C-alpha cells in the first residue's frame, strides 16, 4: 500500500512541482494547440506530395502527440530536481528511488494520453476524418499504451540528466528523431532498412501502426500484435530507465557531481 502511495501521490506531487507546462496558458499553447498545427503541417504536405491520405497523418501525428509531454516530462522529472537543487534530497530518501522515479511517469503518461486524444479529435474534425465507433475503445487503449511507453522512454532520457549536464539537447533531438524514425509521417516502406530497424525499437512506431489498423476498421485482432510490440518496447525502456538511474546515481555519488549544473 505504501509503495502504491509513493508511486501515485509522489508522482502527482513531482508532476506539479517539476513539469514546466502546468500553467493553463503553457499547457494549452504548448501541449494542446502545438500538436494540432504539427498534424496540419504534415497533412497538407502529405496531400501536396500525394504520399498518403489524411487518415495516415491524422492518426500517426495524434499518436506522436503523446510523446511531447512524455519525453520532456521524463527529462524534467530528473533534470529539474537538479536545477531546483532538490536532487540530493530525493536521493537521500530511504525509499526506493526506482519506485519514486518510475511513479513519476504516470502523470506524464496520463497527460500524453489527453494530448493524443485531443489531437485526434480536433484533427479528425478539422480534416473530416470519420472513425469507426467500434474502434474507439481499442484506439483509446492503444494511445494509453503509447503514452506509457513514451513516458518510460522519456524517463530513460531523464536518467541521462544524472550523468550529463545538457540533457535538453538530448530531449530536443529525440523528439525530432521520433518524427523521422517512427514512420508517423513517412511510410515505413519509404525509409531505409536501418532507419526502420531503429524505429522498431522506439516508442510510437508500433502504436501508430496499431492505431492505423483500428482507424481503418480492421479490428482489434489486426492491431493486437502491434499493441503488444509497443507494450514490450515500453517495458524495455522502463527496465533501462531503472538500470540507468541506479547506475548514474551511484556514479554521481562517487564523482561528487550530483548538483553540478
Amino acid at each position, binding site marked *: 500500500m505504501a509503495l502504491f502511495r509513493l508511486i501515485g501521490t509522489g508522482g502527482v506531487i513531482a508532476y506539479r512541482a517539476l513539469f514546466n507546462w502546468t500553467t493553463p*496558458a*503553457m499547457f494549452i499553447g504548448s501541449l494542446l494547440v502545438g500538436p494540432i498545427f504539427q498534424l496540419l503541417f504534415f497533412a497538407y*504536405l502529405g496531400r501536396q*506530395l*500525394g504520399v498518403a491520405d489524411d487518415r495516415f497523418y491524422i492518426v500517426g501525428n495524434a499518436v506522436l502527440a503523446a510523446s511531447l509531454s512524455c519525453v520532456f516530462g521524463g527529462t524534467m522529472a530528473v533534470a529539474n530536481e537538479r536545477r531546483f537543487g532538490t536532487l540530493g534530497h530525493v536521493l537521500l530518501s530511504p525509499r526506493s528511488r526506482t519506485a519514486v522515479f518510475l511513479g513519476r511517469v504516470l502523470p506524464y503518461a496520463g497527460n500524453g494520453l489527453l494530448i493524443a486524444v485531443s489531437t485526434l479529435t480536433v484533427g479528425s474534425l478539422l480534416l473530416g476524418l470519420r472513425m469507426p465507433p467500434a474502434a474507439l475503445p481499442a484506439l483509446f487503449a492503444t494511445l494509453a499504451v503509447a503514452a506509457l511507453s513514451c513516458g518510460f522512454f522519456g524517463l530513460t532520457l531523464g536518467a541521462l540528466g544524472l550523468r550529463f549536464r545538457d540533457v535538453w539537447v538530448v530531449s530536443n533531438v529525440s523528439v*525530432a528523431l521520433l*518524427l523521422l524514425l517512427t514512420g508517423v509521417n513517412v511510410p515505413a516502406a519509404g525509409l531505409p532498412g536501418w532507419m526502420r530497424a531503429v524505429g522498431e525499437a522506439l516508442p510510437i512506431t508500433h502504436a501508430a501502426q496499431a492505431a492505423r489498423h483500428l482507424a481503418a476498421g480492421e479490428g482489434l485482432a489486426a492491431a493486437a500484435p502491434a499493441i503488444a510490440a509497443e507494450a514490450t518496447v515500453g517495458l524495455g525502456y522502463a527496465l533501462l530507465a531503472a538500470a540507468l538511474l541506479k547506475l548514474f546515481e551511484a556514479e554521481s555519488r562517487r564523482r561528487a557531481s550530483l548538483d553540478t549544473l
Partner: protein
Amino acid sequence: MNLLRMIGVGLLLHTKQLSRSSFEIATALIVPVVQATLAVYLFRAGGEPGRLLEAAVGAGLMGVWSSVLFGSGGAIQRQRWQGTLEMIMLAPRPPALMVLPITLATAVTGTYAMLATLLWGRLLYGVPLDFAHPLLFLIAVPGCVLGLGMFGLLLASTFVLMRNANALTNTLEYPIWLVSGMLVPLTVLPGWTGPIAAVLPTTWGARAVHEAAVGGPVWPSLGICLAISLGCLVAGALMMTYVERRARAAATLALA
C-alpha cells in the same frame, strides 16, 4: 556610422555568445538536419526527387525561423537571467538598438541550419545544388535573415509583455512554417490563410530564397520581405521603448 558599428559589434558579440552554447548549436544543426532528412524521404516517397533542393532549402528556412522564434522570443528573459538586462537598458542608446543585435544574432545563428541542410543534402543524398540564381541566393539568404532579425525585435518586445510568452513561442513554430510556405506550397492551403501569409515577412523571405534556388523573380519578394520587416522594426522599437519605460517606472525590470 557609429550606429552601424554598434549594431555590427553587438551582432558579432551575440553571435559568438550563441555559438558557444551547445544547446543552440545542437538545435540549429541537428534538428534541421533531421527535418531535412524527413523532407527528403517525403519528397522521394511522393515521387518528387527533382524537388529535393526545394526540400533542403525549405528545411533550412524552417531552422532559421525556429532560431529567430525561440531566440528572439526569449531574448529579454535570457538577458534577465544572465543579469545583463540592466546594463543593456542603462546604455546611452535607445533600448531597441541594444536588443536589435541580439535578435539579428538569433537569425544569423539560424543560417547554420541552412548551411547544415544544404551540406547534408549534398553529401548524403546527392542533392544537386543547382541554384537557378546562385548569386541571388547568396543575397536572398542574408536578406531573409536580416528581415527575420528585424521581425525578431517585434517578437522580443511583444513577448516581454506576456508572462506566458513561452506558450506562444512553442505554438508559433509550425503555423509559421505552414502559412509561410517554407515547405508546403501556399496553393494547397485554404484560401483564408492567404491574407495572413501576405503580411508575414517570413512568407516573402521564404519565397525570395525559394525563387533564388529554383527560379523566379527574387527582388520583388525580397523587397517586400524587407519592407514588412522594417515596419516590424519600427513597431518593435516603439514597443520596446514603452516596455522599458513601464518597467523602470514600476521597478520590474529585473523581475521575471
